[in-house]
């Protein structure tokens, strides 16, 4: 079964792309195929000139793809610390404490709960941990699915602020958020999916002009 087709876009270092579309449009499918969990029937995925299509998710992680999946999917039985250790698994172990310190800088709340099992964190804290875990691998590209799903507005703000810091560091972001205004406001460009087809791609600012006219 074909869920998404004819999708074509590029992203610069530190670039941000909002992926917008109604339920079932194929946003998660697209992100999961970029992460290597869904193998496309045809097409190319390139990162820094390296073709990723024949590479598994663990290799893509090492090459700079980070994933903050729909539903967060932290490892509930592992502690916050252990979740972050797993996140940094693709990098040499002597990078671990440095990377972890950077995560705690962005999300101080995780530091306070370092030894708590992830399953006992609040939804917002789990989302922060999912971000932290992805950042541990020092990605060039962060795939974020359903950032605000089920979160309090204040936590959503906190996550967007953290995301902004990451973008300033040069990490490119592809973002899906059920609150599509939040996503398009955050991202400089937007791609609209409609039942698996790419129907619009451009600057997010152009999008808001179009809709006001």
């Amino acid at each position, binding site marked *: 079964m074909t869920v998404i087709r004819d999708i074509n876009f590029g992203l610069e270092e530190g670039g941000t792309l909002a992926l917008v579309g109604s339920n079932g449009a194929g946003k998660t499918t697209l992100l999961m195929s970029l992460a290597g969990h869904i193998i496309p029937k045809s097409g190319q995925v390139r990162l820094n000139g390296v073709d990723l299509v024949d590479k598994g998710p663990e290799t893509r992680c090492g090459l700079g793809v980070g994933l903050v999946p729909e539903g967060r*999917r932290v*490892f509930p039985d592992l502690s916050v610390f252990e979740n972050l250790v*797993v996140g940094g*698994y693709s990098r040499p172990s002597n990078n671990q404490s440095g990377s972890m310190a950077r995560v705690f800088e962005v999300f101080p709340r995780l530091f306070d709960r370092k030894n708590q099992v992830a399953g006992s964190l609040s939804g917002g804290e789990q989302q922060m941990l999912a971000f932290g875990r992805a950042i541990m*691998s020092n990605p060039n590209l962060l795939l974020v699915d359903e950032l605000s799903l089920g979160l309090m507005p204040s936590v959503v703000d906190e996550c967007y602020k953290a995301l902004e810091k990451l973008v300033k560091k040069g990490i490119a972001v592809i973002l899906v958020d059920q609150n599509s205004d939040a996503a398009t406001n955050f991202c400089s460009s937007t791609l609209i999916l409609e039942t698996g087809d790419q129907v619009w791609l451009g600057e997010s600012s152009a999008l808001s002009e179009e809709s006001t006219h």
Partner: protein
Amino acid sequence: MLFFDLCIQGVIQGAIYALIALGLTLVYGLLRILHVAHAALFTLGGYIGVIVTNGSGSFLLALFTSMLIVAVVGMSSYTIIYKPLLNRAPLISLIASIGIFIASEELFRIFFGAYGLSYINPPLQGQIEILSGVSLSHARILVVVLAIGLLSGVGWLAINTRVGIAARATVIDPQMAASSGINVEIIRYGSFFIGSAFAGAAGVMVSLLNNLVEPTMGAVPSYKALAIIVLGGLGNVRGALVASLALGIIESFGTIYVGHLLDRDSIAFAFLIMVLMVRPQGLLARG
């Protein structure tokens, strides 16, 4: 001293169950497959233990050789049987596994004879008096020491090393583990390696305690170990270890006190049924 004797007997049996059940639990946790053929590895371990000891005169060499060969055979069972069936319904792997197990009994019969093998000079038969009136053979002590050593070694790895933490993450969510850079295949092979080596060690120890290996020695462990991993909460390593010990002790006391009503294996399964009526999720699993 009967009470004390029965406790020791139970701990020894529990240690053997635990060595066998670890591999089964790891495989279930990672692949959601009931690895019935695991018990064939236990038998293979026993045969290698007897053959190498009789050939070389060194029991220690036999133990290491057995663990290593059984570990490699266990890893190949993943490559040959389970990996090609991963995308099929779990029932198919289960049937393949049962088939391999049944075939293995016949293979042991064909290669090593129907009546089994014994040690020419059974090693570690010396006795130590640990309390007045209670003495144990070196072999029995070694079973417990070996089980505690090997299992706590694995426990230490799982808690304190990156690989161990990665393996636990892989059991919980293989996709997210992979997206964190973990090679899930390596974790699977490593688990088959460790779990099979431990089953091999258990086979060697049982061959020593009984001074006998025979083609069907894996039959009882095959279903007993399944009961244990269900008792422990499927895929829960700590639960399986607790269940192994509990079952060993209950069988040991049960055969004395209710042995005239139920035989050893019936006691084990009566216990399984009673626990599952109260805690369907197993002894340690969360609700």
